[in-house]
């Protein structure tokens, strides 16, 4: 399968602080990828690099099979982006901004714009500067969705939305995902949003995508284990991220569940209890 986004050896530093350190990443069509990372991990830098908004030091990036900084205008129009901070002209009214942006796209859907403006109760006659942060974010989302993009990149899209607004935004993304074969990359701190809509989870840590996997597989393999054994048995838990010995046995969190090892434990009559974890805990364990 051809990748929609293909990143190889991406590096980027600000002054003398290196942010991305030889990062590689491949995104397949139809994926809905949630990107997690601590504050300052470089999520925004990574997303901006993909879009050629932020310069990179070295590495290769291709989008729709074309080099990222030489995208044809046709391919550029296939990308929708919602930045973390509003960089639109704030003295324009919502209507004017929409009409201005519309000129750049041949695939612009007025229908989508009208529908979302009324559903999200935005007064389009108001200037951007007069809107609340949540309303501005909604306008940015509308601008990104209007050209009916095939690749959507969101940088913390839900950050200034209230719970109802966030849920409605998720609904809109889910409708897009079920209707068309759209690919979505979104960075977030809200793991429960990611758990609802993403099929893959990526973790950016120490300048690299340190973890990238199917969300369901992640929940089935990154688990807490309690091994009911005595110290003398000298049992080592494979893929251990963090472990503790106590009188009742061993406790640990693994990055992967080793089936062969589990079978071996069963043979030795060592009881192993498996406790699944939510994504927030998984994220904390993987970046600890």
């Amino acid at each position, binding site marked *: 399968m051809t990748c929609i986004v293909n990143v190889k050896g991406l590096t980027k530093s600000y002054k003398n602080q290196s942010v991305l350190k030889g990062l590689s990443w491949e995104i397949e069509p139809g994926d*809905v990828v949630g990107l997690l990372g601590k504050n300052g991990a470089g999520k925004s830098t990574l997303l901006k690099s993909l879009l050629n908004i932020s310069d990179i030091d070295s590495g290769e990036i291709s989008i729709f099979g074309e080099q990222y900084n030489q995208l044809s205008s046709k391919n550029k129009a296939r990308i929708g982006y919602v930045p973390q901070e509003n960089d639109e002209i704030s003295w324009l009214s919502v209507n004017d901004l929409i009409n201005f942006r519309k000129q750049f796209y041949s695939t612009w859907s007025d229908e989508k714009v009208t529908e979302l403006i009324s559903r999200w109760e935005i007064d389009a006659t108001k200037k951007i500067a007069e809107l609340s942060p949540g309303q501005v974010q909604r306008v940015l989302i509308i601008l990104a969705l209007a050209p009916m993009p095939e690749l959507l990149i969101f940088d913390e899209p839900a950050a200034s939305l209230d719970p109802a607004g966030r*849920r409605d935004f*998720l*609904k809109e993304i*889910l*409708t897009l*995902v*079920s209707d068309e074969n759209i690919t979505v990359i979104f960075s977030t701190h809200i*793991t*429960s949003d990611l*758990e*609802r*809509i*993403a*099929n893959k989870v990526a973790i950016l840590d120490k300048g690299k995508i340190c973890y990238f996997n199917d*969300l*369901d597989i992640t*929940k*089935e393999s990154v*688990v807490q284990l309690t091994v009911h054994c005595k110290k003398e048995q000298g049992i080592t838990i494979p893929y251990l991220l963090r472990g503790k010995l106590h009188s009742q046995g061993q406790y640990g969190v693994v990055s992967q569940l080793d089936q062969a090892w589990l079978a071996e434990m069963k043979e030795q009559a060592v009881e192993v*209890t498996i*406790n*699944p*974890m*939510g*994504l*927030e*805990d998984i994220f904390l364990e993987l970046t600890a």
Partner: protein
Amino acid sequence: MEQFIISPSSGIPIYKQLYSQIERMVLNGYFSVDQRLPSVRQVASDLDVNPMTVSKAYGLLEERGYLTRLRGKGMVVTARDDEVLQQEKLTMLDEMIKELLAQAKQMGISDDKVVQMINRNVANKQDETVGKE
């Protein structure tokens, strides 16, 4: 039509949560034979989850013989031998008993004690039924 309940932040993947709920609903007769299940789209939109997740659960239920995919109709509950159905129900109960015994063991309660407790509950229930008559 909110028939299913999921908790997205649980460590159990959403498709698995859906799978076990629908499995139980088929076995306890909430969904009857030939009954049509809500479409993938409908469930995904009701629960605000990715449609792929719902498809995955439905696919697994089809694979295990609970559901049949009918052209243009979506998923319906498969008609199956009483014997097979009975076996599925027993398997499910068996899993629950295993879990119960494991929990008891963690609390330091012996298997014998659990059996005793089950017997006592059965006896109490019979007393109640007799009382009512």
